[in-house]
């Protein structure tokens, strides 16, 4: 069992839908989006395209963030999801330093969506989901997954560019897509052809545009 995500960049239109639905589902604080859309440039001027790249926690096979956690708050579950136990997290920020994806954020003690105007009713209501002073990140919408639902960003992607499933199961949608299409993993920790360096091996796959 290894949960993973496949994002089809041919379908992704960069509408930020995933980012908004992630925020709605997880009530992430300002500046700390778990699911984001970045844009990169493809080609050489004047033949240039601006392409979206939705990013989230990559749920690496060999997560460095879990290794450096001095309290064991960050864990890799048997189903492949990397989680943070907020009861054990002390906010030491070691994991933020080593994650090359910028996937982790500190939940601030004071935060307002609209600075100076007080917290919105939604922020107040969703406070119980968080523990200020601890580090948070995408957990593949674990509460939803445990109920048998897909992560919010997958279910609500209007271009239907996101797929979620078991990478270990050869018959799952995600496995089939990876088999049939050209894909890449964002793996900045490994230089191409650098040899046997320890790999992060992310569980998020991108199908080429």
């Amino acid at each position: 069992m290894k949960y993973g995500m496949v994002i089809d960049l041919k379908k992704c239109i960069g509408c930020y839908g995933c980012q908004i639905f992630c925020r709605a589902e997880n009530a992430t604080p300002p500046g700390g989006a778990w699911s984001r859309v970045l844009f990169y440039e493809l080609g050489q001027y004047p033949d240039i395209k601006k392409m979206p790249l939705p990013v989230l926690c990559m749920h690496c096979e060999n997560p460095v963030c879990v290794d450096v956690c001095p309290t064991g708050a960050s864990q890799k579950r048997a189903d492949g999801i990397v989680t943070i136990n907020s009861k054990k997290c002390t906010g030491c920020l070691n994991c933020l330093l080593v994650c090359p994806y910028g996937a982790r954020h500190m939940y601030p003690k004071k935060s307002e969506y609209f600075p100076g105007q007080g917290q919105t009713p939604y922020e107040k209501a969703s406070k119980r989901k968080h523990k200020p002073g601890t580090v948070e990140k995408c957990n593949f919408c674990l509460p939803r997954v445990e109920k048998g639902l897909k992560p919010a960003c997958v279910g609500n992607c209007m271009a239907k560019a996101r797929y979620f499933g078991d990478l270990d199961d050869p018959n799952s949608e995600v496995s089939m897509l990876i088999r049939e299409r050209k894909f890449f993993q964002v793996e900045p920790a490994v230089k191409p052809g650098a040899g046997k360096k320890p790999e992060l091996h992310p569980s998020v796959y991108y199908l080429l545009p």
Partner: protein
Amino acid sequence: MANTKHLIIGSGAAALSALGQIRKFKPDDEIKLLTMEDCLPYSPASLPYLLAGKIKKRIPWLRDKKYFKRMKTTFATGKEVVQVQPEAKQVIYRDGGVEHYDNLLIASGAEPIKPPIKGLDKVGVHTLRTLADCRALQEALRDAKKVAILGAGLVGIKIAAALLEKRYQVDIIESENAVLPLYFDEEAGTYIHEIFVGHQANIFTGKTVAGVSRQKNGKIYIEFDGSGSTTADVLINAVGVRSRIPALDATKIKVNRGILVDAEMKTGVEGVYAAGDVAEAACFFTGKAVVNAIISSAIAQGSVAGANMSGQSVSYEGGIAMTAVDIFDNSAFSIGLINAPGKSLKIIKEKDDAKRKFKKLIFDGDRLVGAMFINETMDPGIIRHLIKKRVDMATYKQALIDRVRPLTDPWLASLRFSGEK
């Protein structure tokens, strides 16, 4: 052929990381982990938080007994190695016992430096490196009101923040001119200084302690060199750590401040490796050997050592100094080279005194080599990636500071999409 026996001295981050690697490549080899303490492995980095009461329920063990059972590893407690004899391929314990090995990894970590201060032993000084230290300190703090901390390094700062939150009066005494001198320059140090002063801490920078003594009323009297003095109920020594090296006399293992190792974590003597705080490995920027006593270096070195001990050929890419502190809702990060004498570095700086924001990016030519920022929303992991991958930042330098482009732009540009090859 008999299985190889891997002996690992220590049970910290480097040791556990090596254990994982050895087991990955060699499912049947014998592995034995030694710890001088009588408990499961834990990280010294968690102790200031344990002291602060941020971890309430239980001690944050890094691994439990089940893990060692699953990894088919012997975890021996109370075993302090005092001598290594590489010719005979054996180690000597403090209790006189002898243990044979085929591959030895020295990952014994570090121990606090005791500054040469007159009267320090007499008044009783606390440190915070082991669980026992933490327990003793908690006991001493029970009746104390005022605490003096020697050293404004990472541990000193974290203890100070922990104690201030618990409403102790705190004095911090630092011999350098700013707090966190290893990680921040004086300008950034001033900001951290101000944050502490804002929370009623007394910070004495540029002061060395001439002597300490116990007064008649039970308080500890601390006299500075030159002028000035202070008193405290409890004195904590946090001036720094040094590698905890077992006796290596009559061996060819070279020792400087730590055990000198090559890129493969080998000590030069067959079958003996070193990793973590005890090892002196190459610096990422200069290639010179330095002790980089931080958790991520320990993990990386342990993993390299473990892989090489199980017959792989992996090399360490060099340590990058870095740190993160979160004090009273202010975050401060420092990564990479902060000052390099003799090198002409281009520095881009931006600060906002009112909001207490500080940002400094340090470039060597077009490459980012260091950064420090306080209360900025830049992601330190991405900065570290840009440094580590030596990304060409020519077009992004000023844009980054001007906030014209986000930090993720050079990150995205540096990605090589594996499918496009």
